């Protein structure tokens, strides 16, 4: 300030006059010894102890107006200066009460599940017009439920032993969701117009504001993975068998017919007697991986997903896909394209759409490999390889063993998370402040589970 400056000038003048008179001694610059002593005497701050734990976080990005991101201030701003945010183009941290072990993105809604023994194990947000998030009691009218849930809200599951059962995995389809528990089978909720919830189709049933959550227990052994397609459900058991129910017009139930199935039924065909270790589906095509590394497919083949074995556009019985790409570890199905990961860490894509090999590759029936240099492999880091692959409706995601997330595909309403609105024709890194552990891709939004660095 003016006064401060003037005062300092006066003090400097006084000091100079005192110096000239010999009454004051000018301050010498501190010697090395003095500096060293000052340094040793300085206090030491501790920001992280020796046993500091890495924190688990959830990051979301994509279209927010459906409430699927779980941030209510994006849809209904709670402060005057905030503006509604239609699209979140880069990862945004979502505060959760518990550590989220499993997440799933449906068509406009999200489910988050924790491995805890507490009473609240599953949270849901987004569209709830078919009660795919259970019954969310409205505060304004106690008899009705919310149609859009803007914040992660607990889903009340009718568990027999709520303080002992753990939720292992969740999965979401177009308007239904599945929750897998360790000892009480599978819980299904949401739309059942095609029997995708595993219960008998009731004519003119009203799904909005429904309290009904169905429990499925009759399988030949414990269910270890649940997968939702668009309007069908797949269950994989410990013995390696696959059950399906729901809409079958494209053969996606794999039961040999094109009708609706409302009770989970075992699949045969080429997977009869084969130990299946992973199943995947998101649209109308399904893929299964066996313990020997073989890939089996059934369902929609309009986009050349199964064109390597058949010319027909619908396959209603699981067929073995004779690919010579090595032992397959993981497979993921999208709406029009598929991706598999082999034991060596190579990523192969086929189908239709933006497959990840530049704008020239639009469709292929035979898997094409994406060069590992696009996933961060180089002479400097030859150990970098892809650990997991995931699929949304028109986007792909790959997780490397270094915890990096690569995305490519159609950037529908910012679902890729690159910060740009353009489609991405080859794998692109998403900047996430942490090591990405798992990612769930939806139609227009994505959820990732991340561990902090330190």
């Amino acid at each position, binding site marked *: 300030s003016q006064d401060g400056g003037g005062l300092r000038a006066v003090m400097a003048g006084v000091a100079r006059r005192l110096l000239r008179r010999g009454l004051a001694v000018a301050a010498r610059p501190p010697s090395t010894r003095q500096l060293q002593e000052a340094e040793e005497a300085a206090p030491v701050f501790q920001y992280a102890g020796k046993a500091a734990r890495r924190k688990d976080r959830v990051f979301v990005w994509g279209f927010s107006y459906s409430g699927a991101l779980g941030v209510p201030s994006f849809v209904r701003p709670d402060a005057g200066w905030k503006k509604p945010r239609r699209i979140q183009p880069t990862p945004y941290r979502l505060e959760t009460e518990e550590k989220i072990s499993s997440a799933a993105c449906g068509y406009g809604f999200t489910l988050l599940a924790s491995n805890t023994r507490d009473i609240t194990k599953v949270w849901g947000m987004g569209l709830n017009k078919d009660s795919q998030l259970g019954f969310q009691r409205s505060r304004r009218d106690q008899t009705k439920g919310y149609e859009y849930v803007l914040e992660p809200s607990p889903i009340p599951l009718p568990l027999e032993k709520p303080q002992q059962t753990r939720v292992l995995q969740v999965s979401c389809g177009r308007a239904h969701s599945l929750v897998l528990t360790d000892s009480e089978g599978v819980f299904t909720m949401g739309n059942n117009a095609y029997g995708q919830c595993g219960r008998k189709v009731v004519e003119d049933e009203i799904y909005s504001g429904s309290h009904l959550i169905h429990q499925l227990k009759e399988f030949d052994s414990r269910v270890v993975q649940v997968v939702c397609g668009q309007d069908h459900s797949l269950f994989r058991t410990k013995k390696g068998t696959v059950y399906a129910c729901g809409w079958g017009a494209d053969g996606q139930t794999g039961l040999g017919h094109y009708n609706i199935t409302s009770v989970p039924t075992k699949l045969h065909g080429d997977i009869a007697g084969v130990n299946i270790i992973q199943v995947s589906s998101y649209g109308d095509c399904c893929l299964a991986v066996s313990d020997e590394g073989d890939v089996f497919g059934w369902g929609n083949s309009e986009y050349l997903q199964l064109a390597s074995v058949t010319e027909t556009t619908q396959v209603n019985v699981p067929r073995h896909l004779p690919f010579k790409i090595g032992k397959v570890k993981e497979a993921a199905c999208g709406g029009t394209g598929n991706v598999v990961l082999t034991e060596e860490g190579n990523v192969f894509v086929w189908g239709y759409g933006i497959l990840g090999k530049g704008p020239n590759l639009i469709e292929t029936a035979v898997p094409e490999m994406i060069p590992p240099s696009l996933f*961060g492999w180089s002479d400097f880091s030859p150990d970098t390889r892809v650990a997991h692959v995931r699929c949304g409706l028109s986007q792909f995601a790959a997780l490397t063993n270094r915890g990096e997330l690569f995305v490519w595909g159609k950037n529908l309403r910012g679902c890729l998370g690159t910060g740009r609105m353009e489609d991405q024709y080859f794998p*692109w890194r998403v900047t996430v402040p942490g090591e990405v552990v798992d990612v769930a891709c939806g139609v227009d939004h994505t959820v990732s589970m991340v561990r902090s660095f330190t």
Partner: protein
Amino acid sequence: LNAAPGRAPRQRVRFLQAPAPGGGGAVELVAARVPVLADHPLVRGPQFRKLKIGAGHRLDVKASGVFVLGIGHGNKLLTHLYNCHLTKVYTVGGLFGKATDDFSDTGNLVEKTTFDHITREKLERILAVIQGTNQKALLMYSNIDMKTQEAYELAVKGLIRPMGKSPPIITAVRCLQFALPEFQLEIHCLHETQQYLRKMVHEIGLELKSSAVCTQVRRIRDGVFTVDDALPRTQWNLQSIQEAIRNCQLKVETELERTLG
């Protein structure tokens, strides 16, 4: 340089008068090759009165390592090498536990922190993230349209590089040595300054929930010139310089040909 035998003087054909072979008095013109007087060393003077020496990429006072200079016509090559935008490699030494105002260990102390929770694994994780974000910056500043097949092919080969002005980009980092509290990194970068590398060491310290200062910055490669080609202080004499220029000529030519065509 001036003591070395210079250029031979130019020769010129002149018609000189010589006495005729016949009787005395008559002169005839005879063609003879004579050196041009203007090229005589006493007329010309020393060949080199001053030398034009240009400097390549900057190296500041606290850093050490390879420093490229161009002499005479080499200055034009320096400009071409600058336009090639080749990467430089540094070994950067760091020390955990201190934070200073100019990010090096000779600055004023700002804060002291503990560092016993840092492990090599955590450091490598941070380095992987730095590489990842810089990789993105590399693709973004290279001004290629991401939607073309050409961009895809260059990305696969790893040849995408900003060929114009860009902020400092790090193309590769790795940890060479790790012995708490000291550590040493090898950094490959483009368009950087040494102070930026020191700031990066400081930021690595912050990211690991501690603090770090930079103790040493040494450039070990600048484009095509490595430490093996560089002349140490004891060899700053004419013979070594001439030999070094001869050895590097081929390398520089091939690199310019490859990048600029």
